[in-house]
């Protein structure tokens, strides 16, 4: 069912959910301090391995479609220690960023091909192919699409044998806090899939911290 939403109900009297905005709404599970853990599966005819991955959100600015954080990869064969990278995310909100990347050697065809790997993208596909999804109203869509680009290694040198030349197409599910992603690098052939779930790091419940920049 197409999810190009035309607002038929009257604008709500309550706040937080700006009724005029078509951008994704805030989601507590995708806010600063939130942690995710799971695996990155690297698979091709030569190798088939899974790294454990932990991700933590450090910055989130929905007005600018910006997200950032760290990614920690454990049991990486080429590395003696866990490898941590810092990444920045572009949130596809049709205002700051569309489904078309426009850089990082990703063509619109590449974009459609990668986004199509997410089942949650299929209702949006026709509109995205038509206009990049600019006319979509994503404010009530329970998935947030992003691109994550690792910028630098935090704790190892660039000679660690790993590359961060590519980027991830990412889909976050607002309803269960899960993250799925596909790594794209035209110069790197393995199929790499990221699967993460929200974690509360050993607590029998969810805890949330916050900071405020002046």
């Amino acid at each position, binding site marked *: 069912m197409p999810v190009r939403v035309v607002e038929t109900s009257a604008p709500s009297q309550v706040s937080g959910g700006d009724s005029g905005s078509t951008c994704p709404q805030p989601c507590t599970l995708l806010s600063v301090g939130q942690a995710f853990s799971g695996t990155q599966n690297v698979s091709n005819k030569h190798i088939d391995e899974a790294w454990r991955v932990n991700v*933590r959100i450090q910055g989130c600015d929905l007005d600018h479609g910006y997200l950032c954080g760290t990614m920690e990869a454990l049991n990486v064969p080429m590395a003696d220690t866990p490898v941590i990278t810092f990444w920045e995310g572009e949130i596809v909100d049709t205002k700051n960023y569309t489904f078309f990347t426009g850089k990082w050697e990703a063509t619109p065809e590449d974009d459609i091909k990668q986004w199509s790997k997410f089942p949650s993208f299929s209702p949006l596909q026709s509109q995205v192919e038509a206009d990049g999804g600019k006319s979509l109203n994503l404010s009530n869509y329970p998935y947030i699409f992003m691109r994550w680009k690792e910028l630098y290694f935090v704790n190892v040198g660039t000679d660690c044998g790993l590359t961060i030349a590519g980027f991830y197409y990412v889909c976050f599910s607002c309803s269960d806090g899960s993250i799925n992603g596909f790594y794209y690098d035209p110069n790197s052939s393995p199929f790499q899939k990221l699967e993460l779930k929200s974690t509360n790091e050993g607590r*029998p419940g969810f*805890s949330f*911290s916050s900071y405020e920049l002046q």
Partner: protein
Amino acid sequence: MLVTLSLPSSTSHEITLPLSTMPASVSPAASTIRPSTDTLIRLASSDHGVQLKALRDVKNQIIGNRTKKLVYIKLGAVPAVASVLADALDGSGHSSTDLLVQSAAALGSFACGVDAGVRAVLDSGALPCLIQLLSNHDEKVIGSAARSLKLLYQSKLAPKYDLSENGSVELLHSLLNSENENANGLAASIIAHSCKASAEQKAFCLNGILAKLIDLLGGSISQRDASLESLASIMKSNHEVASQFVKYERGQALNLLVNLTNERSTRTRLLACACLITLRNVSSTYLRGRGTETKLVRYLVELLEEPGQVGEEASFALSSFIEDDEHLQKLAFDANAIDVLCNHLQKDPLQPKRLEGILIALARMCSRLEFCRAKFLQMQAFNSVSEALHHDCADVRGAACICMRNVTRSVQNLSAGFFMNENIVIPLLELLHDPNPFIQLEALCAISNIVVNFRTSNSSFIRWGGLKQLVQLSVSMDPAIRSNSLCAIRNLTFEADNKCKAEVFKELTASSLASLVSDPDPSVQEQALAIVRNLTGGSLESIQYAFAEGGIILDAVQRQLECASTVESGIQGIFVLSNVASGRDAHKDAVMDRLLHNMGSGSNPPYLLRFMQSNDSRLRTASLWLVVNLASPSCMGASRRIAKLRKAGVVSQLKIMVKDPCLDVKVCRAGAWHFFPLKPSFEPIADYSPGNFFLSAASSDDHTGSVPDLRRQLKIELFMCIALRIFPVLLHSCPSGCPIPFGLKTRNSILLLSTSITDPFATSS
């Protein structure tokens, strides 16, 4: 503040030669003459030559010398000079002209930059005399009077120019029309001084001044410049006047103004830009569709390169133009403003005013856009900002602090620990004691950003004494300082390790934190609650902080929630309870007891229900997380807490929230909802087989012996699947211990979950 000097005795330093016998050629240098009552005697002399000399002596001594000005003012020199002026007005001849010129100049000098001087000149009654001089036939007299009046009108103590007074409008017109640039400058000063309020601006328009100013945009350079300055004053923040200007002769005035941005004279270009900025600040529509904004930014960036006052003022004009406007900041970025500013910043030495202007402009550029901050840091001029923190001039230090504050909003660089550097932090900590309160506050805000660290330890900051200083400031008399120092501590505790939290808690203390939670200032309350929230987040043992000293912090949080004065305090307070409730059974029960106590008090609606009904989605969401954590089946006592929540009306409220417009609320509500069984009564059962959902009539006091309803069974199974899908973490991330089967059984249904049971206050294993 008057400076009192211990003056040398008059017999030792005063000039005692009879004045009449002193040839002018051997008169001592003015700088060696001490202020004395002898000067007053000479000013009162009937000999014009003596008076003239005395005037020159006074004038030459006081120019640029604040101390001497104050001494002469105290001696009563100003009335004496005013008296010379008044007498000379009645006189004629060359000597009178000289006396007029010198006395006017002296009075202007007294008024320049010294409030006591302005008061003395006004009190002496010299103002009408000076104004009278503007009609003099001698250009030198007019020039001297105009310069002095301009200096007077630059002071806020000067009276407003009264257009209703006889002849005042004509005088203003004549000043504007004059070929004398001092007269033109005076007119601009008068208008700038007298056009603060909207009614005043309108009065100037009604008296034909607006039309005259527009007309003079085509006049001589000084007339044009004076007009531009005056127009900016008249239109500032005034929709009516700005609109009149824009519509004047179908936009001809605006076109003329835009054209003046291309003038050869850099001063004219700058003033024209400033005038356009004033228009845009009234309404962005005035410049729309002309590409004027892009051109304005480009012109201002070019003018940054000009030497002297134009270059200085260009940076302030650029700052005021781009302030708070991302679109304009982007235009300035595209015009290479950051490159130009950084190149100037690295030149040495810079005049304080220019340095201040550059720092403020960089601060505005970096206020909102990450790519601007990235560019600035790439230019490697950041060291110059750190150095400016030590500058002698307070305005420069203040500008450096604002720049620091804005650049340290870069999360990428905070994450890299770029700013946690003693060359940056230690000077900022020193500025917390700056005599200027504005600088203290800006330094505090910069520190508050820097201590947000995600990976690097804050031990350096603590070692440099930063934490101690923040805690000291948390009890400042100034609520802004209190609130901002607490915000810094909040940021310090964000995702902090146990060692850092322990240090913060030890320094701040439980009693102080409890007291700050109850502070009369709402923003202080909010930040204090946020600190407690951060302290209780993270590792499980952190929850202990809420219970320190018999739970005084939690009690204070409870009291604050009962009378939450702001939404922000409510959000932070509820998240404190939610974080505590994310712990073990005893933690959850402690929170539950407090909720029940509130619900039992009866006087107001319970805060949990109030918050679930709030207009603010963040508060509704926070409340739901509390419900989720309380109702979570991950701990043994979930069933009794669920019963209590149901009895308190939470389930009814959850039902109402099914149509909440906010997606985050809906998701959280759905998660909470599925922890509440279909039927109220339930009890745990001991046996669990994963994936084996049965309707069971066994071992339940509520058992009716009825045939299991398959449809109901499937519905429950579906609910369970959804609940498991939504919050699987609650089932799999229990504290260590052997998983012990645990179940909830409702009549005709069984929901089976597993959890582990541990001592709620046991230390983590």
